[in-house]
């Protein structure tokens, strides 16, 4: 029954590859949240098993390369994680990745490991200038999931 509800909601938002995500859920268990970009993809930026064990090492290495050397072209950025794993709620607003039951929170709560990433980093994709211009011209890796809710959250309201 629960799966039927999940399946129904996936189809209703018209996401390609939803069936594939469901198959993964049924086969091995997945914490990828329906309604996120990640749910439409076969795997993360690396193999799923690798990411489960090593995602923290990957983003830790990337952060040094980005902060000190300015490298922002690789697929291992934390903002990339957020872009892809943030889901869109029923009200059309992007749901923070560290909100209860969301991608980051789900596993980290289960394993009782705190996260400090989001003390500083945005938990939803938030690019105010891109939101007001043509999203098709957004730079690589910064595809917008949703615009209005983020803008109104900032009190801009356009």
């Amino acid at each position, binding site marked *: 029954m629960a799966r039927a509800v999940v399946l129904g909601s996936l189809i209703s938002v018209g996401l390609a590859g939803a069936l594939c995500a469901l198959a993964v859920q049924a086969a091995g268990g997945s914490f990828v949240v329906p309604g996120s970009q990640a749910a439409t993809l076969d795997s993360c930026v690396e193999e799923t098993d690798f990411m489960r064990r090593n995602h923290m090492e990957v983003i830790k290495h990337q952060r040094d390369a980005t902060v000190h*050397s300015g490298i922002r072209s690789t697929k291992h950025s934390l903002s990339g994680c957020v872009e892809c794993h943030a889901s869109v709620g029923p009200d059309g607003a992007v749901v923070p990745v560290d909100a209860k039951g969301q991608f980051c929170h789900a596993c980290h709560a289960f394993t009782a490991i705190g996260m400090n990433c989001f003390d*500083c980093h945005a938990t939803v994709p938030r690019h105010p200038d891109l939101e007001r211009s043509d999203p098709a011209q957004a730079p690589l890796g910064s595809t917008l999931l949703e615009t209005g809710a983020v803008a109104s959250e900032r009190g801009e309201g356009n």
Partner: protein
Amino acid sequence: MSKPKETINRGRRAFMGVAAGVTGVAVAPGVLLHTVVGAAPRSEPVTSAVRWGLLIDTARCADGCTACVTACNEENGLDLQVKPAGLSDEKWAQQRAVWIRKAKLQDNQTGRVTNLPLMCQHCERPPCVDVCPTGASFKRADGIVMVDRHTCIGCRYCMMACPYKARSFIHEKVDTQLTRAPRGKGCVESCNLCVHRRDQGEASTACVDACAREGSNAIVFGDLKDPNSQISQKLVSIASRQIREDLALNTGVRYANI
């Protein structure tokens, strides 16, 4: 700022604040846009082949104009800061993070008033880097002085060491950040010459764009090491100075007409 030449004793340098009256900053609300150039994100490490810098013509900097400050606030998410409950407006004005301050200087002898934006001066030999106990305060190969907040412990030595009062400390938990500008409680931050724009290969900074939109064109951004860049050409043709040049920090931000 017009002290006689002294020999610099690097061992016992006195870190002084800017020696003129610095006025508070009035931050005006407003929405500014900048166009995103379709440039590729950087894939190679930055090198010392370039050194980014600013040249600010104070004669063109209008009294009362805060366009650069507003643009900086929006570009770097500083306008998303929220005053903690129970904190007075006065304290908040002192406490909130500010990357550019609009300063008004008056020559006590002649009464001549100069307006200028004051931000991190991106020193070649930055005192903030010297004093940082963890290595969080660092100078990037391309001359940008910044804080690695992953390593910053919030001791604020750098804030005391900076002769320009350019750095801010985030005192409270931050709930809303921009993707390009992470910000959190317990870390120091300051102007990073719009480092996200540098890494995307864009041509200017938010303050430069805003100043140009106002028609003042008081700020020029560019590569100090490229003799053909606009900033280098201008530095050759007009007289410019560093603020507190007596400290011999070789700042990346230069001022004309002061």
